[in-house]
């Protein structure tokens, strides 16, 4: 007897079966056009700086969905390995999943080889994956970490491009942030100087770019360990509403109420003795 449905193994890569259908829907039939749902983008400012003892990464915390703020406290600095962290800009789902895949790959490598992963390994894995997907994964990433060869800061673009630089800004707010970094970056800064530089760069992005806002997160990575400061600086704009908007019970009208008795029938009864400890 033939099965009415056959389970097919999932094909790898993107499935473009619905593309023709989507084009037809978007261009409209007689009834009108149907707009496709847009993926949530982070519309971000992220920045990174290499200083004397390691790397400082910074990010804002606003996630936007078109022009509405979807999340006011989203975490954009993702964990990759104990010594490697990654800031992500672009499509929120893509940055989350890409960094999670990368992190699990590097954990498996660590367990297999007994070594700490190097930043350049993370970069190569990311490049391979993003290039393979031809830019369809909208992840603009800043990777920073400290390994046995030193402190490194890389950027990986959605098409698989890579850049190794001492200071960096990405996201929709990268232009104002880059302005601050270009002005004040020096090689071999000390910790407080580096933290204040990254924080000011993110702050410039937050004030000048509408897609960035709310708080500033920082992540300091050194040979000794990681200091994930979330939030480093809370948004100074906390204007409180003057009135309380609370509703008393009974404000929502109850239109109808039906109570249905559920008939229960005792089918099977088993008794299990439990061992209680401490009986004298």
């Amino acid at each position: 007897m033939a099965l009415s449905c056959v389970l097919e193994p999932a094909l790898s890569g993107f499935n473009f079966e619905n593309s023709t259908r989507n084009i037809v829907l978007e261009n409209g039939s007689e009834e009108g056009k149907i707009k496709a749902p847009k993926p949530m983008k982070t519309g971000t400012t992220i920045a990174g700086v290499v200083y004397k003892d390691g790397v400082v990464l910074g990010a804002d915390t606003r996630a936007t969905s078109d022009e509405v703020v979807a999340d006011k406290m989203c975490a954009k600095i993702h964990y990759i390995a104990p010594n490697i962290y990654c800031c992500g800009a672009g499509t929120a789902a893509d940055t989350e999943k890409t960094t999670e895949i990368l992190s699990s790959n590097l954990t498996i490598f660590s367990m297999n080889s007994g070594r700490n992963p190097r930043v350049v390994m993370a970069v190569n894995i990311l490049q391979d994956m993003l290039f393979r997907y031809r830019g369809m994964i909208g992840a603009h990433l800043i990777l920073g970490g400290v390994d046995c060869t030193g402190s490194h800061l890389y950027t990986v673009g959605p098409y698989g491009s890579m850049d190794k630089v001492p200071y960096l800004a990405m996201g929709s707010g990268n232009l104002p942030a880059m302005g601050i970094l270009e002005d004040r970056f020096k090689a071999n800064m000390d910790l407080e100087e580096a933290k204040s530089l990254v924080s000011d760069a993110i702050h410039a992005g937050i004030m000048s770019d509408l897609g960035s806002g709310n708080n500033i997160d920082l992540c300091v990575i050194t040979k000794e360990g990681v200091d994930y400061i979330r939030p480093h600086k809370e948004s100074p704009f906390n204007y409180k509403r003057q009135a309380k908007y609370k509703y008393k019970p009974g404000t929502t009208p109850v239109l109808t109420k039906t109570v249905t008795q559920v008939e229960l029938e005792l089918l099977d009864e088993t008794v299990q003795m439990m061992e209680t400890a401490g009986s004298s």
Partner: protein
Amino acid sequence: MISAQAYGENGKMKEYHYTGPVEHKFSPYAFNGGTVLAVAGEDFAIVASDTRLSEGYSIHSRDSPKCYKLTDTTVLGCSGFHGDCLTLTKIIDARLKMYKHSNNKTMTSGAIAAMLSTILYGRRFFPYYVYNIIGGLDEEGRGAVYSFDPVGSYQRDTYKAGGSASAMLQPLLDNQIGFKNMENVEEVPLTLEKAVQLVKDVFISAAERDVYTGDALEICIITKEGIREEIVPLRKD
């Protein structure tokens, strides 16, 4: 092989791959953001707007209020395309002067609303990209709010929100001023103090979630004594 390029994020692919000749369109409109709100009370009217002027993800100005004082009893709030807002207010000012000179009296709020509707419909086939809301006192001294669409359809309301955060504000106003979707609530008439406090709270909420609204809030309070302005800071990020 299905070409992946055409199905990328609306046109972003075209920057990097040659897909053939592309027609570049010039759009005569831009969206400059901003939110406007007007509330009418028993003997007062309030018109409030934020003061941020933006385009895309950038900010042009943090101090560009969208309330324009037309007469001693009428204020116009307009948001949308800033170029059309400026031209429209210039035209309205000129028409107000012409009316004053030929009829020897100031235009009433209702008359201004009717005139604005005609001006907007005159450009039916190349509209002013402006969302207008007029707030003022009518001939009997009661508060009046007139809300418009870009081509001149208008009606008199008790309260109306327009602009980028209008979809967030209007339901809240429907509930708090119109007492909609509530039962067993004492329907007290709106006082001036309560209305001003509600407007401030509502804009603070809008600034939290709408990226185009923020910087500062300008409230114009219209009573028979005249027009009083209040400026309240909002989120700048």
